[in-house]
Protein backbone atom coordinates (compact mmCIF):
# COMPACT_ATOMS: atom_id res chain seq x y z
CA UNK A 1 0.00 0.00 0.00
CA UNK A 2 2.82 2.32 0.97
CA UNK A 3 4.59 1.75 -2.36
CA UNK A 4 1.36 2.15 -4.30
CA UNK A 5 0.77 5.45 -2.57
CA UNK A 6 4.32 6.36 -3.40
CA UNK A 7 3.75 5.64 -7.08
CA UNK A 8 0.61 7.75 -7.10
CA UNK A 9 2.27 10.69 -5.40
CA UNK A 10 5.36 10.47 -7.56
CA UNK A 11 2.98 10.33 -10.52
CA UNK A 12 1.28 13.50 -9.37
CA UNK A 13 4.65 15.17 -9.08
CA UNK A 14 5.78 14.33 -12.61
CA UNK A 15 2.21 15.01 -13.70
CA UNK A 16 2.73 18.60 -12.59
CA UNK A 17 5.50 18.93 -15.15
CA UNK A 18 3.41 17.39 -17.92
CA UNK A 19 0.63 19.70 -16.87
CA UNK A 20 2.65 22.85 -17.40
CA UNK A 21 3.98 21.77 -20.79
CA UNK A 22 0.45 20.68 -21.74
CA UNK A 23 -0.74 24.11 -20.65
CA UNK A 24 1.73 25.72 -23.01
CA UNK A 25 0.56 23.49 -25.86
CA UNK A 26 -3.05 24.39 -25.21
CA UNK A 27 -2.19 28.08 -25.13
CA UNK A 28 -0.65 27.94 -28.59
CA UNK A 29 -3.49 25.80 -29.80
CA UNK A 30 -6.08 28.25 -28.51
CA UNK A 31 -4.31 31.18 -30.09
CA UNK A 32 -3.41 29.61 -33.41
CA UNK A 33 -5.13 26.21 -33.76
CA UNK A 34 -1.73 24.63 -34.26
CA UNK A 35 -0.05 22.08 -32.01
CA UNK A 36 3.48 23.34 -31.62
CA UNK A 37 5.87 20.40 -31.63
CA UNK A 38 8.79 22.74 -30.95
CA UNK A 39 7.29 23.79 -27.60
CA UNK A 40 9.46 21.38 -25.60
CA UNK A 41 12.66 22.49 -27.30
CA UNK A 42 11.92 26.15 -26.68
CA UNK A 43 11.40 25.22 -23.03
CA UNK A 44 14.69 23.32 -22.97
CA UNK A 45 16.53 26.21 -24.59
CA UNK A 46 15.07 28.67 -22.08
CA UNK A 47 16.23 26.43 -19.26
CA UNK A 48 19.78 26.66 -20.64
CA UNK A 49 19.44 30.41 -20.57
CA UNK A 50 18.43 30.19 -16.91
CA UNK A 51 21.40 27.91 -16.29
CA UNK A 52 23.76 30.45 -17.88
CA UNK A 53 22.32 33.25 -15.78
CA UNK A 54 22.73 31.24 -12.60
CA UNK A 55 26.28 30.26 -13.62
CA UNK A 56 26.99 33.95 -14.08
CA UNK A 57 26.19 34.41 -10.40
CA UNK A 58 22.61 35.59 -10.53
CA UNK A 59 20.39 34.59 -7.57
CA UNK A 60 17.94 31.78 -8.47
CA UNK A 61 14.70 33.74 -8.40
CA UNK A 62 16.14 36.67 -10.33
CA UNK A 63 17.34 34.24 -13.00
CA UNK A 64 13.94 32.51 -12.88
CA UNK A 65 11.95 35.63 -13.63
CA UNK A 66 14.47 37.03 -16.08
CA UNK A 67 14.32 33.74 -17.99
CA UNK A 68 10.55 33.98 -18.14
CA UNK A 69 10.84 37.42 -19.69
CA UNK A 70 13.51 36.26 -22.15
CA UNK A 71 11.43 33.21 -23.10
CA UNK A 72 8.42 35.45 -23.65
CA UNK A 73 10.38 37.68 -26.00
CA UNK A 74 11.86 34.62 -27.72
CA UNK A 75 8.35 33.24 -28.31
CA UNK A 76 7.15 36.55 -29.74
CA UNK A 77 10.18 36.76 -32.04
CA UNK A 78 9.76 33.18 -33.26
CA UNK A 79 6.15 33.92 -34.15
CA UNK A 80 6.92 37.22 -35.87
CA UNK A 81 9.96 36.00 -37.82
CA UNK A 82 9.43 32.30 -38.48
CA UNK A 83 5.79 31.38 -38.03
CA UNK A 84 4.14 34.51 -39.44
CA UNK A 85 5.32 33.97 -43.03
CA UNK A 86 3.66 30.53 -43.11
CA UNK A 87 0.47 31.63 -41.36
CA UNK A 88 -1.67 31.04 -44.44
CA UNK A 89 0.21 27.91 -45.53
CA UNK A 90 -1.34 24.43 -45.45
CA UNK A 91 -1.19 22.57 -42.14
CA UNK A 92 1.53 20.24 -43.36
CA UNK A 93 3.90 23.12 -44.15
CA UNK A 94 3.30 24.53 -40.70
CA UNK A 95 4.10 21.16 -39.14
CA UNK A 96 7.33 21.07 -41.13
CA UNK A 97 8.24 24.53 -39.84
CA UNK A 98 7.56 23.39 -36.28
CA UNK A 99 9.74 20.33 -36.72
CA UNK A 100 12.42 22.55 -38.24
CA UNK A 101 12.21 24.79 -35.17
CA UNK A 102 12.50 21.73 -32.97
CA UNK A 103 15.71 20.63 -34.70
CA UNK A 104 17.14 24.15 -34.73
CA UNK A 105 16.65 24.72 -31.01
CA UNK A 106 17.94 21.27 -30.21
CA UNK A 107 21.11 21.69 -32.28
CA UNK A 108 21.60 25.23 -31.10
CA UNK A 109 21.54 24.08 -27.49
CA UNK A 110 23.94 21.24 -28.26
CA UNK A 111 26.26 23.58 -30.11
CA UNK A 112 26.33 26.29 -27.46
CA UNK A 113 26.16 24.17 -24.32
CA UNK A 114 27.37 20.72 -25.55
CA UNK A 115 25.46 17.50 -25.04
CA UNK A 116 26.97 16.66 -21.64
CA UNK A 117 24.28 16.68 -18.98
CA UNK A 118 24.32 19.43 -16.40
CA UNK A 119 22.78 19.68 -12.97
CA UNK A 120 20.19 22.38 -12.52
CA UNK A 121 19.43 23.80 -9.07
CA UNK A 122 16.07 23.62 -7.33
CA UNK A 123 14.78 26.66 -5.46
CA UNK A 124 13.11 24.40 -2.90
CA UNK A 125 14.71 22.91 0.24
CA UNK A 126 16.64 19.62 0.03
CA UNK A 127 14.95 18.32 3.16
CA UNK A 128 11.90 16.17 2.35
CA UNK A 129 8.61 17.84 3.31
CA UNK A 130 6.53 16.81 6.33
CA UNK A 131 9.19 14.22 7.26
CA UNK A 132 7.95 11.83 4.57
CA UNK A 133 10.03 10.31 1.83
CA UNK A 134 7.09 9.84 -0.50
CA UNK A 135 7.94 13.01 -2.38
CA UNK A 136 10.71 15.55 -2.49
CA UNK A 137 10.19 19.18 -1.65
CA UNK A 138 11.05 20.00 -5.22
CA UNK A 139 8.24 17.86 -6.58
CA UNK A 140 5.72 19.49 -4.26
CA UNK A 141 7.10 22.89 -5.17
CA UNK A 142 6.85 22.14 -8.89
CA UNK A 143 3.20 21.18 -8.53
CA UNK A 144 2.58 24.36 -6.58
CA UNK A 145 4.24 26.44 -9.29
CA UNK A 146 2.09 24.77 -11.96
CA UNK A 147 -1.07 25.56 -10.05
CA UNK A 148 -0.04 29.18 -9.55
CA UNK A 149 0.66 29.52 -13.28
CA UNK A 150 -2.72 28.05 -14.07
CA UNK A 151 -4.48 30.44 -11.71
CA UNK A 152 -2.66 33.43 -13.18
CA UNK A 153 -3.43 32.32 -16.69
CA UNK A 154 -7.08 31.73 -15.90
CA UNK A 155 -7.40 35.19 -14.41
CA UNK A 156 -5.63 36.74 -17.36
CA UNK A 157 -7.94 35.17 -19.93
CA UNK A 158 -11.05 35.58 -17.85
CA UNK A 159 -10.74 39.02 -16.38
CA UNK A 160 -8.50 41.22 -18.52
CA UNK A 161 -9.41 43.00 -21.77
CA UNK A 162 -6.24 41.67 -23.39
CA UNK A 163 -7.09 38.10 -22.39
CA UNK A 164 -10.56 38.53 -23.86
CA UNK A 165 -9.09 39.97 -27.05
CA UNK A 166 -6.76 36.99 -27.37
CA UNK A 167 -9.64 34.55 -27.04
CA UNK A 168 -11.66 36.52 -29.57
CA UNK A 169 -8.79 36.67 -32.07
CA UNK A 170 -8.30 32.91 -31.89
CA UNK A 171 -11.97 32.25 -32.44
CA UNK A 172 -12.96 34.72 -35.06
CA UNK A 173 -10.11 36.73 -36.59
CA UNK A 174 -12.32 38.65 -39.00
CA UNK A 175 -14.77 39.90 -36.39
CA UNK A 176 -11.83 40.63 -34.13
CA UNK A 177 -10.32 42.98 -36.69
CA UNK A 178 -13.70 44.66 -37.02
CA UNK A 179 -13.66 45.56 -33.33
CA UNK A 180 -10.10 46.80 -33.70
CA UNK A 181 -8.10 43.89 -32.27
CA UNK A 182 -4.64 43.58 -33.83
CA UNK A 183 -4.97 39.89 -34.50
CA UNK A 184 -1.37 39.33 -35.63
CA UNK A 185 -0.07 40.64 -32.33
CA UNK A 186 -2.47 38.47 -30.37
CA UNK A 187 -0.93 35.41 -32.01
CA UNK A 188 2.56 36.64 -31.18
CA UNK A 189 1.44 37.27 -27.62
CA UNK A 190 0.07 33.72 -27.43
CA UNK A 191 3.45 32.40 -28.51
CA UNK A 192 5.19 34.58 -25.96
CA UNK A 193 2.96 33.36 -23.14
CA UNK A 194 3.34 29.74 -24.18
CA UNK A 195 7.11 30.07 -24.31
CA UNK A 196 7.13 31.67 -20.89
CA UNK A 197 5.07 28.80 -19.48
CA UNK A 198 7.35 26.31 -21.23
CA UNK A 199 10.36 27.98 -19.63
CA UNK A 200 8.80 27.57 -16.20
CA UNK A 201 8.15 23.89 -16.93
CA UNK A 202 11.74 23.46 -18.10
CA UNK A 203 13.17 25.04 -14.98
CA UNK A 204 10.96 22.84 -12.82
CA UNK A 205 11.81 19.61 -14.63
CA UNK A 206 15.55 20.18 -15.05
CA UNK A 207 16.45 19.48 -11.38
CA UNK A 208 14.71 16.08 -11.73
CA UNK A 209 15.87 14.84 -15.14
CA UNK A 210 19.06 16.95 -15.41
CA UNK A 211 19.68 19.44 -18.14
CA UNK A 212 20.56 18.23 -21.61
CA UNK A 213 19.35 19.14 -25.08
CA UNK A 214 17.02 16.15 -25.21
CA UNK A 215 15.49 16.54 -21.79
CA UNK A 216 12.06 17.57 -23.08
CA UNK A 217 11.49 15.00 -25.81
CA UNK A 218 9.76 12.35 -23.69
CA UNK A 219 8.02 15.01 -21.65
CA UNK A 220 6.55 16.64 -24.73
CA UNK A 221 4.93 13.36 -25.70
CA UNK A 222 3.37 12.95 -22.27
CA UNK A 223 2.29 16.58 -22.31
CA UNK A 224 0.69 16.10 -25.69
CA UNK A 225 -1.20 13.10 -24.29
CA UNK A 226 -2.22 15.22 -21.31
CA UNK A 227 -3.44 18.04 -23.50
CA UNK A 228 -5.50 15.63 -25.55
CA UNK A 229 -6.93 13.88 -22.49
CA UNK A 230 -7.93 17.22 -21.04
CA UNK A 231 -9.26 18.61 -24.29
CA UNK A 232 -6.86 20.52 -26.49
CA UNK A 233 -8.79 23.77 -26.06
CA UNK A 234 -9.17 23.61 -22.29
CA UNK A 235 -6.33 24.91 -20.08
CA UNK A 236 -7.82 23.53 -16.86
CA UNK A 237 -8.41 20.18 -18.53
CA UNK A 238 -4.81 20.12 -19.75
CA UNK A 239 -3.55 20.54 -16.20
CA UNK A 240 -5.83 17.81 -14.89
CA UNK A 241 -4.83 15.68 -17.89
CA UNK A 242 -1.19 16.20 -16.92
CA UNK A 243 -1.79 14.81 -13.45
CA UNK A 244 -3.82 11.90 -14.81
CA UNK A 245 -1.11 10.99 -17.30
CA UNK A 246 1.59 11.30 -14.64
CA UNK A 247 -0.23 8.93 -12.28
CA UNK A 248 -1.15 6.44 -15.01
CA UNK A 249 2.41 6.40 -16.28
CA UNK A 250 3.82 5.68 -12.84
CA UNK A 251 1.27 3.17 -11.66
CA UNK A 252 1.11 1.25 -14.93
CA UNK A 253 4.90 1.38 -15.20
CA UNK A 254 5.33 -0.05 -11.72
CA UNK A 255 2.65 -2.72 -11.71
CA UNK A 256 1.46 -3.56 -15.19
CA UNK A 257 3.76 -2.98 -18.10
CA UNK A 258 7.14 -2.28 -16.53
CA UNK A 259 9.29 0.81 -16.81
CA UNK A 260 10.63 0.10 -20.27
CA UNK A 261 7.24 0.44 -21.88
CA UNK A 262 6.18 3.51 -19.94
CA UNK A 263 6.40 5.84 -22.90
CA UNK A 264 3.89 3.71 -24.76
CA UNK A 265 1.31 4.75 -22.16
CA UNK A 266 1.47 8.18 -23.71
CA UNK A 267 1.07 6.83 -27.21
CA UNK A 268 -1.84 4.62 -26.25
CA UNK A 269 -3.53 7.57 -24.57
CA UNK A 270 -2.97 9.82 -27.57
CA UNK A 271 -4.40 7.31 -30.00
CA UNK A 272 -7.17 6.29 -27.62
CA UNK A 273 -8.39 9.84 -27.09
CA UNK A 274 -8.17 10.73 -30.78
CA UNK A 275 -10.24 7.69 -31.67
CA UNK A 276 -12.78 7.60 -28.88
CA UNK A 277 -13.28 11.18 -27.75
CA UNK A 278 -11.41 13.74 -29.86
CA UNK A 279 -12.63 16.65 -27.80
CA UNK A 280 -10.96 15.15 -24.71
CA UNK A 281 -12.48 14.27 -21.36
CA UNK A 282 -13.06 17.88 -20.48
CA UNK A 283 -13.10 19.47 -23.91
CA UNK A 284 -16.01 21.78 -24.35
CA UNK A 285 -18.74 20.70 -26.69
CA UNK A 286 -19.92 23.88 -28.29
CA UNK A 287 -23.53 24.60 -28.99
CA UNK A 288 -24.18 26.89 -31.89
CA UNK A 289 -27.43 27.97 -33.38
CA UNK A 290 -27.48 29.52 -36.81
Amino acid at each position, binding site marked *: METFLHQVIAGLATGGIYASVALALVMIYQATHHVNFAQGEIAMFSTYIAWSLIQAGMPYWVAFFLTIVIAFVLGVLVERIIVRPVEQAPVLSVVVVFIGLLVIFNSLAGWIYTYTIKTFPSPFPEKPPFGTHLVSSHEIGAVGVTLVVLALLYSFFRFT*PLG*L*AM*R*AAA*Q*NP*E*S*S*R*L*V*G*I*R*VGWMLALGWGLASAIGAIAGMMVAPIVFLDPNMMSGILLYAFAAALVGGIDNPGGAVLGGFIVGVLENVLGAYVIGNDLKLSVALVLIIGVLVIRPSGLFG*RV*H*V*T*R*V
Partner: protein
Amino acid sequence: MAALLQVAGLHAAYGLTRVLHGIDFALEEGSITALLGANGAGKTTTLRALCSMVKVEGEVHFDGARIDGRATEDIVRLGIAHVPDGRGTFTHLTTEENLRLGAYVRRDKSSIAQDFERIYGYFPRLKERRHQQAGTLSGGEQQMLAVSRALMLRPKLLLLDEPSFGLAPLIVREIFAIMREINKTEKVSILLVEQNAAMALDLADHAYLIETGRVVLSGTSEDIKKDEAVRRSYLGY
Protein backbone atom coordinates in the same frame (compact mmCIF):
# COMPACT_ATOMS: atom_id res chain seq x y z
CA MET B 1 -20.63 70.67 -46.67
CA ALA B 2 -18.42 67.69 -47.50
CA ALA B 3 -19.95 64.26 -47.10
CA LEU B 4 -18.98 62.08 -44.13
CA LEU B 5 -18.17 59.24 -46.48
CA GLN B 6 -17.14 59.81 -50.07
CA VAL B 7 -16.42 56.85 -52.32
CA ALA B 8 -14.98 57.30 -55.80
CA GLY B 9 -14.09 54.73 -58.46
CA LEU B 10 -14.13 51.78 -56.12
CA HIS B 11 -12.91 48.56 -57.74
CA ALA B 12 -12.55 45.21 -56.02
CA ALA B 13 -11.88 41.62 -57.02
CA TYR B 14 -11.72 38.16 -55.47
CA GLY B 15 -8.67 36.68 -57.11
CA LEU B 16 -9.26 37.15 -60.81
CA THR B 17 -13.01 37.69 -60.50
CA ARG B 18 -13.71 41.40 -60.71
CA VAL B 19 -16.71 42.24 -58.58
CA LEU B 20 -16.85 46.03 -58.27
CA HIS B 21 -16.31 48.12 -61.40
CA GLY B 22 -15.98 51.67 -60.15
CA ILE B 23 -18.58 52.44 -57.50
CA ASP B 24 -19.24 56.09 -56.61
CA PHE B 25 -21.42 57.26 -53.79
CA ALA B 26 -21.54 59.65 -50.88
CA LEU B 27 -23.13 59.58 -47.45
CA GLU B 28 -24.09 62.82 -45.72
CA GLU B 29 -23.32 63.17 -42.06
CA GLY B 30 -26.33 62.21 -39.95
CA SER B 31 -28.12 60.44 -42.77
CA ILE B 32 -29.25 56.90 -43.34
CA THR B 33 -28.17 55.82 -46.79
CA ALA B 34 -29.13 52.51 -48.35
CA LEU B 35 -27.31 50.38 -50.89
CA LEU B 36 -29.86 48.24 -52.68
CA GLY B 37 -29.45 45.49 -55.20
CA ALA B 38 -30.10 41.88 -55.99
CA ASN B 39 -28.20 38.98 -54.53
CA GLY B 40 -24.63 38.98 -55.90
CA ALA B 41 -24.69 42.64 -57.01
CA GLY B 42 -21.67 43.52 -54.86
CA LYS B 43 -23.23 45.17 -51.80
CA THR B 44 -21.36 43.08 -49.25
CA THR B 45 -18.14 43.53 -51.18
CA THR B 46 -18.66 47.31 -51.13
CA LEU B 47 -18.95 47.31 -47.35
CA ARG B 48 -15.95 45.01 -47.04
CA ALA B 49 -13.99 47.32 -49.33
CA LEU B 50 -14.70 50.29 -47.07
CA CYS B 51 -13.05 48.43 -44.17
CA SER B 52 -10.11 47.05 -46.17
CA MET B 53 -11.40 43.52 -45.84
CA VAL B 54 -10.80 43.05 -49.57
CA LYS B 55 -8.14 44.57 -51.77
CA VAL B 56 -9.45 47.71 -53.45
CA GLU B 57 -8.63 50.37 -55.97
CA GLY B 58 -10.24 53.77 -55.87
CA GLU B 59 -10.60 56.41 -53.20
CA VAL B 60 -12.47 56.36 -49.94
CA HIS B 61 -12.61 59.49 -47.83
CA PHE B 62 -14.07 59.39 -44.36
CA ASP B 63 -14.47 62.40 -42.10
CA GLY B 64 -11.94 64.33 -44.15
CA ALA B 65 -9.26 61.63 -44.27
CA ARG B 66 -8.37 59.16 -46.96
CA ILE B 67 -8.89 55.64 -45.57
CA ASP B 68 -8.52 53.22 -48.48
CA GLY B 69 -5.49 51.02 -48.00
CA ARG B 70 -5.46 51.46 -44.22
CA ALA B 71 -5.68 48.39 -41.99
CA THR B 72 -9.13 47.29 -40.86
CA GLU B 73 -8.09 47.73 -37.21
CA ASP B 74 -7.17 51.36 -37.85
CA ILE B 75 -10.33 52.17 -39.77
CA VAL B 76 -12.33 50.97 -36.76
CA ARG B 77 -10.43 53.43 -34.63
CA LEU B 78 -11.66 56.28 -36.84
CA GLY B 79 -15.21 55.44 -35.80
CA ILE B 80 -16.57 53.05 -38.42
CA ALA B 81 -18.41 50.06 -36.96
CA HIS B 82 -19.25 47.24 -39.33
CA VAL B 83 -21.99 44.70 -38.67
CA PRO B 84 -20.86 42.13 -41.20
CA ASP B 85 -22.73 39.75 -43.40
CA GLY B 86 -23.54 36.74 -41.19
CA ARG B 87 -23.37 38.93 -38.05
CA GLY B 88 -19.83 38.00 -37.00
CA THR B 89 -20.86 36.87 -33.53
CA PHE B 90 -18.17 35.53 -31.23
CA THR B 91 -20.28 32.44 -30.67
CA HIS B 92 -18.15 30.89 -27.90
CA LEU B 93 -18.08 34.04 -25.81
CA THR B 94 -20.89 35.37 -23.68
CA THR B 95 -23.23 38.14 -24.76
CA GLU B 96 -21.53 40.51 -22.34
CA GLU B 97 -18.07 39.59 -23.60
CA ASN B 98 -19.22 40.25 -27.17
CA LEU B 99 -20.34 43.70 -26.11
CA ARG B 100 -17.15 44.36 -24.22
CA LEU B 101 -15.19 43.52 -27.38
CA GLY B 102 -17.23 46.12 -29.24
CA ALA B 103 -15.71 48.75 -26.96
CA TYR B 104 -12.21 47.27 -27.23
CA VAL B 105 -10.58 50.32 -28.82
CA ARG B 106 -12.26 52.91 -26.63
CA ARG B 107 -10.17 54.81 -24.13
CA ASP B 108 -13.00 56.35 -22.10
CA LYS B 109 -13.39 53.25 -19.95
CA SER B 110 -15.61 54.98 -17.42
CA SER B 111 -18.47 55.66 -19.82
CA ILE B 112 -18.49 52.10 -21.14
CA ALA B 113 -20.52 50.97 -18.14
CA GLN B 114 -23.21 53.53 -19.06
CA ASP B 115 -23.18 52.26 -22.61
CA PHE B 116 -23.98 48.76 -21.42
CA GLU B 117 -27.09 50.15 -19.76
CA ARG B 118 -27.96 52.21 -22.84
CA ILE B 119 -27.71 49.08 -25.03
CA TYR B 120 -29.68 46.98 -22.57
CA GLY B 121 -32.27 49.74 -22.65
CA TYR B 122 -32.69 49.28 -26.39
CA PHE B 123 -32.53 45.49 -26.22
CA PRO B 124 -33.67 44.23 -22.80
CA ARG B 125 -33.42 40.66 -24.05
CA LEU B 126 -29.67 40.98 -24.32
CA LYS B 127 -29.53 41.90 -20.65
CA GLU B 128 -31.44 38.76 -19.74
CA ARG B 129 -28.98 36.76 -21.80
CA ARG B 130 -25.83 38.60 -20.84
CA HIS B 131 -24.07 35.59 -19.28
CA GLN B 132 -25.21 33.20 -21.98
CA GLN B 133 -22.90 31.86 -24.69
CA ALA B 134 -23.71 34.03 -27.71
CA GLY B 135 -23.92 31.06 -30.08
CA THR B 136 -26.99 29.84 -28.20
CA LEU B 137 -28.94 33.06 -28.84
CA SER B 138 -31.73 33.04 -31.41
CA GLY B 139 -31.13 34.59 -34.83
CA GLY B 140 -32.94 37.78 -33.86
CA GLU B 141 -31.03 38.08 -30.61
CA GLN B 142 -27.75 37.53 -32.43
CA GLN B 143 -28.62 40.32 -34.84
CA MET B 144 -29.45 42.61 -31.92
CA LEU B 145 -26.13 41.61 -30.38
CA ALA B 146 -24.26 42.33 -33.61
CA VAL B 147 -25.79 45.80 -33.84
CA SER B 148 -25.14 46.41 -30.15
CA ARG B 149 -21.53 45.27 -30.43
CA ALA B 150 -21.08 47.84 -33.18
CA LEU B 151 -22.77 50.56 -31.10
CA MET B 152 -20.40 49.89 -28.20
CA LEU B 153 -17.73 51.53 -30.34
CA ARG B 154 -19.77 54.76 -30.24
CA PRO B 155 -19.21 54.98 -33.97
CA LYS B 156 -19.70 57.96 -36.26
CA LEU B 157 -20.75 55.60 -39.01
CA LEU B 158 -22.50 52.27 -38.76
CA LEU B 159 -22.27 49.81 -41.65
CA LEU B 160 -25.13 47.30 -41.61
CA ASP B 161 -25.06 44.31 -43.93
CA GLU B 162 -28.54 42.84 -44.39
CA PRO B 163 -29.72 43.14 -40.80
CA SER B 164 -33.08 41.68 -41.85
CA PHE B 165 -31.61 38.51 -43.29
CA GLY B 166 -33.39 35.36 -42.10
CA LEU B 167 -35.41 37.14 -39.43
CA ALA B 168 -39.14 37.29 -38.77
CA PRO B 169 -40.76 40.56 -39.95
CA LEU B 170 -41.69 41.53 -36.41
CA ILE B 171 -38.08 41.38 -35.23
CA VAL B 172 -36.87 43.19 -38.32
CA ARG B 173 -39.32 46.02 -37.60
CA GLU B 174 -38.11 46.19 -33.98
CA ILE B 175 -34.47 46.41 -35.06
CA PHE B 176 -35.20 48.99 -37.78
CA ALA B 177 -37.15 51.14 -35.33
CA ILE B 178 -34.19 51.16 -33.00
CA MET B 179 -31.83 52.01 -35.88
CA ARG B 180 -34.00 55.02 -36.66
CA GLU B 181 -33.95 56.09 -33.02
CA ILE B 182 -30.19 55.70 -32.76
CA ASN B 183 -29.74 57.73 -35.92
CA LYS B 184 -32.01 60.52 -34.58
CA THR B 185 -30.92 60.71 -30.97
CA GLU B 186 -27.28 59.70 -31.15
CA LYS B 187 -26.47 61.22 -34.53
CA VAL B 188 -24.96 57.98 -35.81
CA SER B 189 -24.86 57.94 -39.61
CA ILE B 190 -25.87 54.63 -41.13
CA LEU B 191 -24.96 52.89 -44.37
CA LEU B 192 -27.53 50.15 -44.80
CA VAL B 193 -27.19 47.27 -47.23
CA GLU B 194 -30.43 45.46 -47.95
CA GLN B 195 -32.10 43.12 -50.38
CA ASN B 196 -35.36 43.98 -48.70
CA ALA B 197 -35.76 47.22 -50.66
CA ALA B 198 -39.16 48.18 -49.29
CA MET B 199 -38.05 48.21 -45.66
CA ALA B 200 -34.73 49.85 -46.50
CA LEU B 201 -36.40 52.68 -48.43
CA ASP B 202 -38.75 53.34 -45.53
CA LEU B 203 -35.80 53.78 -43.21
CA ALA B 204 -33.27 55.52 -45.47
CA ASP B 205 -33.08 59.14 -46.65
CA HIS B 206 -31.00 58.31 -49.71
CA ALA B 207 -30.45 55.18 -51.71
CA TYR B 208 -28.16 53.83 -54.38
CA LEU B 209 -29.05 50.89 -56.55
CA ILE B 210 -26.18 48.55 -57.41
CA GLU B 211 -26.24 46.12 -60.31
CA THR B 212 -23.26 43.86 -61.08
CA GLY B 213 -20.74 46.06 -59.36
CA ARG B 214 -21.96 49.45 -60.63
CA VAL B 215 -24.25 52.14 -59.29
CA VAL B 216 -27.13 52.34 -61.75
CA LEU B 217 -29.46 54.68 -59.92
CA SER B 218 -29.34 57.09 -56.99
CA GLY B 219 -31.56 59.61 -55.30
CA THR B 220 -33.73 60.28 -52.30
CA SER B 221 -35.71 57.33 -51.06
CA GLU B 222 -38.90 59.03 -52.21
CA ASP B 223 -37.62 59.37 -55.77
CA ILE B 224 -36.30 55.81 -55.86
CA LYS B 225 -39.60 54.45 -54.62
CA LYS B 226 -41.31 56.17 -57.55
CA ASP B 227 -38.93 54.71 -60.13
CA GLU B 228 -40.79 52.31 -62.47
CA ALA B 229 -37.95 49.82 -62.89
CA VAL B 230 -37.19 49.71 -59.17
CA ARG B 231 -40.82 49.21 -58.41
CA ARG B 232 -41.11 46.27 -60.74
CA SER B 233 -37.78 44.57 -60.01
CA TYR B 234 -37.20 45.30 -56.33
CA LEU B 235 -40.44 46.32 -54.70
CA GLY B 236 -42.68 43.87 -56.50
CA TYR B 237 -45.76 45.98 -57.18
